[in-house]
């Protein structure tokens, strides 16, 4: 297939502004993965009618990490409010941006939220969204049990029962875990009730989880229940969630901060400097997404 054909190439929208701060490395990640990234300031959706703000022109919408609105009102809350209530041109006659996003998802397209972006998707009710097309607050992300911001590399397990296309390539690659940095103060996932917990488990929406990483322990690779392997006290050690359609994925870890092998804290002395730059977990994450979406576009085109 001709991956240079621009109609086939994956177009990634990356939201920026209002305190979001990981948009540039995220754009670089998509670029290195072969996609065409476009960074668009969130406010432009409300005053700018250029093609760059038309959602259906993109294959995947990305909410990067950062501190949108300084985390005031609770992390992700204020940006979620903006998306849920604000309309183009501040015009009450028009639909809020969230309605456009739901229309966009009906086209079978994708959304990824990382860290603060994950918080935004959760507060919007897009995750886990147990009833399709009906965003509702079912889970939340709140203060880490340690009560502090924390920067730490974690072992992230991949739930192989997950049906999300965004992770499907990892399943065929038989990849069970990733090493990625987490950097957050509010990453502890709580669920509204047992019913929601059971649904999340039975539908395998808990697609990424903190994994026990102590090699001395027998339960290596098990879901991590304790600090620091589970850095924030999340229920079911959840590090990432997807919705029932699999099109929306949110996660606390930062794959966009691991684009070359020398980013890894163990990298010195373990990797020969002469080795070719193999694809590391973070970049692989984006390559897999881009490959999956490309294949889907090709299939759709040939149909």
């Amino acid at each position, binding site marked *: 297939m001709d991956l240079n054909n621009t109609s086939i190439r994956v177009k990634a929208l990356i939201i920026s502004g209002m305190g979001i701060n990981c948009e*540039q490395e995220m754009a670089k990640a998509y670029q290195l993965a072969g996609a065409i990234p476009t960074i668009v300031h969130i406010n432009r959706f*409300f005053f700018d009618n250029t093609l760059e703000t038309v959602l259906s022109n993109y294959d995947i919408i990305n909410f990067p990490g950062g501190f949108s609105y300084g985390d*005031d009102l609770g992390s992700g809350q204020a940006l979620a409010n903006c998306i849920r209530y*604000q309309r183009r041109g501040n015009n009450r006659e028009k639909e809020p941006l969230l309605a456009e996003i739901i229309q966009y998802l009906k086209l079978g397209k994708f959304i990824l939220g990382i860290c603060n972006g994950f918080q935004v998707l959760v507060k919007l009710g897009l995750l886990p969204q147990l009833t399709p097309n009906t965003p509702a*607050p079912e889970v939340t992300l*709140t203060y880490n049990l340690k009560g502090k911001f924390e920067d730490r590399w974690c072992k992230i397990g991949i739930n192989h029962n997950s049906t999300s296309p965004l992770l499907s390539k990892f399943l065929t690659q038989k990849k069970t875990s990733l*090493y990625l940095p987490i950097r957050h103060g509010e990453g502890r996932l709580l669920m509204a009730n047992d019913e929601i917990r059971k649904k999340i488990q039975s539908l395998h929406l808990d697609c990424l989880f903190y994994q026990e990483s102590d090699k*001395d322990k027998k339960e290596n690779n098990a879901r991590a229940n304790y600090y620091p392997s589970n850095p924030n006290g999340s229920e079911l050690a959840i590090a990432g969630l997807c919705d029932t359609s699999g099109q929306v994925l949110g996660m606390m870890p930062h794959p966009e901060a691991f684009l070359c092998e020398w980013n890894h804290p163990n990298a010195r002395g*373990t990797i020969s400097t002469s080795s070719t730059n193999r694809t590391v977990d973070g970049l692989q994450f984006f390559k897999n997404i881009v490959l999956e979406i490309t294949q889907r576009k090709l299939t759709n085109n040939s149909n």
Partner: protein
Amino acid sequence: MNINQQQYDQVTFVQIKNRDNIYDPWGNKFIASVKREHDFNCGEFIAGKIYTVNKLYYRQFNIEESELKSLALSAWCDPLLHQVSINDVGIIGDLNNNLNGDSKTDNYQSLIIIGKHPGVTDDEGKVAEITARDFFSLAHFQDDNQQYSQTILTNKFLFLKNRIDLLKLRQWGEEFLANRLINYIIVAQYPFDDIQQQLTKIANRSFVPTFTTQPTQFLQKIERFEHILEFTKNRDLAFDDTELKSILGYYQRGDIQAKRKKFFAISGDSAGNSASDSTVIGPSELEIEIFAQTWSEHCKHKEFNAIIEYHNLDCNQKITINSLFKTYIQSATNLITERLKHATTIVEKKRERNGSHLSPSSRINRPSRPSWPSWPRKVFADNAGLVQVDAQHYLAFKVETHNTPSALDPYGGAITGILGVNRDAVATGVGGGKAILNTNVLCFAPPNYQQPLLPGQLPPRRIMEGVVEGIADGGNKMGIPTVNGSIFFDDRFAGKPLVFCGTAAIMPTQICRQGMSEAIDSAEKIIDNGDLIVMLGGRVGKDGIHGATISSMSLNEDSEHNSSSVQIGSPFTQKLLFDFLEEAVQQGLVKACTDNGAGGLSSSIGELALITNGAVVELHQVPLKYHGLAPWEIFVSESQERMTLAVSESAWEQLKKLSLNMNVEATNIGRFTNSGYLEINYFSEKVAYLELDFLHHGLPQKKLFAEWQTPIGKNEGNPCDNYHYFNNIEYNKIALQLISSLNICSREEIIRRYDHEVQGRSILKPLMNHLPPHAPQDAGVLRLNLDNESYRGLAVANGMAPQYVDYDPYHSSAGAFDEVIRQIIAVGGRIPSDKPESLASEDSVWTINDNFCMPNAVYDPEKNPDGKRKLGQLVEMCRALYDISTYYNIPITSGKDSMKNDLVVGENKISIPPTVLYSAISIIPDVRRTISSEFKNSGDLIYLIGNTYNELCGSEFFKILKLDCFQVPSQVPKVRKELARPLYLKMMQAHDMGLLESAHDLSQGGLWVALAEATFNSNNGVGNGAGAGTGALGADIEIVERDMPPWLYLFSESHSRFLVSIKPQRQKQFEQIWKTNGSENESENENKSEVTNVTLLGTVTDRKAITLKFNKQIIIDLNIDQIYHEWENGLKQYLH
């Protein structure tokens, strides 16, 4: 309706409280702190927030209280976490379940509410307002809100189960939750009847729109010195007599008076109406304030520019120094720049010569042409030093201190410190660069400080916690990685902590300006007559008024009452500002920008106006947080997150539009002119008219006195003569004491609170290994860009050694300088050799900031009897800077000084030790080749590189034994630069040949500590993550040493040493390097009498223990887990 009724009717209270069993770190911390510090159990708690909403404001959009209710339910709370109720403050209600009012309230006996004083910026309130605008589909940013700067205010509260004495509760609130400079506290016991009334009163003060202008005062009499003296004294301004006389002289000048009469007469106001020839127009209060800001220590560095009569008593030499800055700092950088330029010329000539008459094929071997200058692009002339780091980018680097604000309000002081230095880096040249790294060095009194606290002095532990939180929030919320830092503890920082904050930003070397076809050099600020002055960012309030002058004064117990000297930081506001500035510069809309830091508009406009030589400011255009500010307050306020831009008239409309779309307030507040004067108007009133030349060059030079004599102690001689101190040393015990001592132990608890990965550039992190044991590193390394094509990067390091300053200030400074060099050499950075190709190389570019922090060093026979000695220490420190900098050809590109770091309360004075910090960034040509500090493989050989001397004076070892070098003869570590440089060049050679597996520099705690830290590796060379576990490696060490006892060999803190490990098969190659006569033919006469020792110490093992034999006897035998445990917990035990 009477006025009170109207006011009461203006407010809606929204209470958002946590649901049961929701973990709340804020409340938890309070309960835990009260328990720990006061042994009191507050019982269970419920935490939450109260939003006070200006209902009147929303009514203009036909939004009624019922709609505010649904706003609160749908947008301000998270239904999983919170319950919401309206207008029932003090009752635990729940709107979600229609239970407005809850009988359970009486289960909670105490209540504490923390809010912000009227006028203090309330970010959460602002965000709540933006959300309200989203909810009601109003535009984010409109000019409809001139009346109120905030329409929603927020409070936090805790209902506490147990009944608590109100005085105690208030005191604990001040101790753990609030700062009374910023916050008000309301405490109550059940029933909480009048709480809502109290909050209403406060809200009324905040929300009532008032509009008063205060007429400006003029000093009418200036015939006598006393007139002006009294005027300034009443205002607490830090002038000395000479300065006041000089100002008086200015106003008495005939030409000035003539101009003033002409200028002020135009307005026909009270100042000018009776202006006959005999009357004079004295200074306006605004003018005096402008002098105070512009001539403050903070802005003009009066002591660094003073004439100093210096007497060195050691060699009985007397010299007159005309400005420490010019003599030792600027001249060093100038000399280095000349050398680098000269070297480049030689390389260019060689290239021409070789290239012109050789065949094309042999031209490949000609000396390569440097792609860009290796000398600094801009030094000491802008907000930050500027060097070029790659083909398209400059790097702006600035480090500053924020000590006094951090002593008063640790969190606020530190966060405004880091945000302020962000602005310095980003506002260099045209501005709009991208901040890519933060660094910080913090000096505190130990958290277990036992001395009684003086009035106005905060407990050291609280200062540490607050400062760390401020640094973390500032960096994290701005998305700037904190790549490197350090913390130093000493009792003498109990009066004032030192908070050094640094930021580097990259910006394109060329930018296009709108309407111009050719790109221009972004390093220059080019402003033309007629360009607009634009203020950008946060609104102006009374915060931080007199910050620049306060930092020029000693702290005393009254400082705390001067509440306006505290500034409030808002990373959110600043992030929006930076995003906007980057975009506006890219669109070519900005001609120049500068930071509004100390001195506010007064400083920023004052500096930019020098470029065109004049400015007119319309003060009434400046957007205010609240009304009632006098003109002088508007001009000198240090309200944060602001910048001043120069914008051409043609670009203004577009810039304004862009600012509205990016939620940034941009206001045109005047014009640049070429009149030679700074003219300031406030509505129709003329309020200031000052000659720029006098304002900036009229400051009389200070004259100061300094002397230095090395203290007479037992520092000459051999400590071995005093063996009785060391006869019974238990090495295992001392080894563990050292590794857990506050100045050596792990900073992990703090490091992990700083985001060091954001932007994805991170290569060498503060701690390596993703699982414990984590290894501390010497320098931070990051990539410049994320493409696969280039792995060019930067190394960042800090060096400081105040522990030696009382014995030998010269070597305290030299040692700090050596420390940054050796840290960067350890990871794989490069210093230039004396060859032209090396000096001209773009791979040995360095940029260093110096930061001198001094106690009061102005001699006064009564108030400061040892002032001469302290200033003498500063002279010696500056001499060392010159010597080391010029020896290595490593330039200082920017710096700062902070001169009055004392706490004076009555007879008591706590003064910091004179401290210089060197912060360095240098080029790493290929980050993939950098080396970390920890051993990698079992079987590798361990070497000590460099010479160990009898240098235990000031050491951590002596500190643990409670010895000083007045009791035991030992010396301060000395920098032997003639030996160090060839050693560093050979280390570079070992790096280049790929021989090193690990490299760690030796500093506090000497060889033992470096060795222990180097064993902290969890992955044993197996690969990413696979070798996880606690402790995988150890070391077998055998030292044979006849001339030195083990304690000296192991714990001496001699400089310029490394601990390295290599693969055994590379032993020959490695040792060969040190046998040859240096990798470069050093042309100068190195000191040949001494040679560098390279000593094979032992091997890396997989035994997870360190066994150390000294002359065949095992003296240390410790398990790595045990060592790591001690190292890990040294500081952690004092942090939550």
